[in-house]
């Protein structure tokens, strides 16, 4: 059995899905980011002044891009895999000799593609509002790739457990969005009181946003080594959980 063909099939299907409905998947992040720039950048940002040695608009750009990557990687896999469960076309893969790791890699790869593509679109929109600096392109590529993989895995696990469409919106609404907003997108966590700085250390998004910001601006509230270690830990953990769930057939086989 040629696993690379199976992987390519799942990946192609996933990419075709979100590009077929591009108005729903690729346009909204561009509009949302433009609004953020108008409100937080031009209107409010000009009154805030500098943050971390950069004007406020430049400071928030990496966080806003990362926010779009996180949201889209997660929601792509969550909605696509749950739809496949709901329409029962997930059975097409389950009856075929597709190894579980190929199913996980295919869906996660699809989520990563959407997350990274949206990240690129948001970056292009950002150029219209602010001069983007590049401090270290490799850190940017590594961070966006690993972060999209992390949240795509999270979306997959969410979809495996989900029993209704409501279940795939609960985690993004009540956990992902608060963690992202409190993850240092709009502020440096060094501005927080010491206690809340400590609390922020348990938010994984802080590490992702700061590593990404380092790639653009060369500044970070956390060390890069710690940031990549945290992201790596989450990828390994979530991948293991996803593999166990699929091999046991949780939510998939009766």
């Amino acid at each position, binding site marked *: *059995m*040629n*696993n690379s*063909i*199976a992987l*390519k*099939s*799942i990946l*192609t*299907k996933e990419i*075709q*899905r979100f590009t*077929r409905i591009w108005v729903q998947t690729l346009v909204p992040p561009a509009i949302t980011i433009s609004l953020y720039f108008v409100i937080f950048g031009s209107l409010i940002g000009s009154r805030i002044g500098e943050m971390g040695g950069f004007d406020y608009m430049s400071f928030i750009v990496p966080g806003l891009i990362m926010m779009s990557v996180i949201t889209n990687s997660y929601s792509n896999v969550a909605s696509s895999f749950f*739809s*496949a469960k709901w*329409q*029962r*076309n997930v*059975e*097409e*893969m*389950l*009856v*075929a*000799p*597709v*190894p579980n790791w190929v199913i996980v890699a295919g869906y996660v790869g699809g989520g990563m593609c959407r997350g990274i593509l949206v990240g690129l679109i948001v970056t292009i929109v950002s150029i219209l509002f602010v001069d983007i600096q590049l401090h270290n392109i490799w850190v940017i590529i590594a961070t966006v790739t690993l972060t999209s993989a992390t949240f795509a895995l999270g979306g997959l696990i969410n979809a495996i457990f989900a029993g209704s469409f409501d279940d795939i919106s609960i985690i993004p609404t009540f956990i992902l969005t608060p963690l992202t907003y409190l993850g240092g997108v709009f502020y440096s966590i060094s501005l927080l009181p010491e206690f809340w700085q400590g609390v922020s250390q348990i938010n994984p998004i802080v590490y992702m946003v700061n590593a990404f910001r380092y790639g653009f601006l060369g500044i970070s509230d956390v060390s890069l080594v710690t940031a990549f270690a945290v992201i790596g830990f989450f990828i390994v953990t979530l991948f293991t959980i996803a593999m166990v769930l699929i091999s046991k*057939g949780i939510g998939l*086989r*009766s």
Partner: protein
Amino acid sequence: MTYALEISALAKTYKGGFQALKGIDLTVKQGDFFALLGPNGAGKSTSIGVITSLVNKTAGQVKIFGFDIDTDLEKAKSYIGLVPQEFNFSQFEPLVNILVNQAGYYGVSKPVAMQRAEKYLKQLELWDKRDEPARALSGGMKRRLMIARALMHEPQMLILDEPTAGVDIELRRSMWDFLRELNEQGITIILTTHYLEEAEMLCRNIAIIDGGEIVEDTSMKKLLAQLDVETFVFDLQPNLTVAVLTEFAEKSHSIAYRVVDDHTLEVDLNKLQNLNQVFAQLSAANIDVISMRNKSNRLEALFVSLINKKSNVTQSKPQSAVVGAN
């Protein structure tokens, strides 16, 4: 001999305690056209679910062409093509994409998959719809799409769970021809259906499952030979009366006739009687026969009697237990 399917002591108990399969044993020979029949909730779809790994079994063993699903699951899966009871493809994808992706899951390269998609879509008269999303198809077309999809990796065994449900007669017959052709090419076919005429016409061997147990597992010929009595309906010349037919029926003691109306008779024949006797009696009475047909499907009659027999046994068991307790 390697069987296409070997099931031994297969049991499935769902969460909540419902025992869908109670240790069934079943074998299907390579190249067979096999019917798995049973009433709703008998365990047919659970059996197919376990064979195709959509349902986790509780106990027992399943081998597909000699490959155990516990130890060689991927190899075993590669032999099976499944046409499920319910539509289970993405409603939004074009037909060609559905087929090519499905082939890809079995490691079939895109150029080969495109050729096969064209072949099967043409054979199943769906080629004109190839670029349309699946939701645009009629019910019968969707059924044919699922058959095409199941064939994309050219499986050795095709399992069809109610493939002609909701399909009109003309289309059903063309699907039967298509399935016969596949079987003649050497593909083992396992069929579940509620149309017993379909099973009788297509299948060489049959198993009947009820309440999670196999109640009959034999060849179609042997099963039909169990039938003691068959009922035939005779359409007669139009210028008769009920009184004439009643008089004829009363005189003909050797055969049990029933007068339905002034031009229709029903006759119950057992194994020792033959139709020649009937024709001889009718001819002697100057009654002409216009046409003749079986009143009911033969397999249906047997099916009902087997299921009833089992339910009578099941019902009698608690009574025995009560008597024993007294």
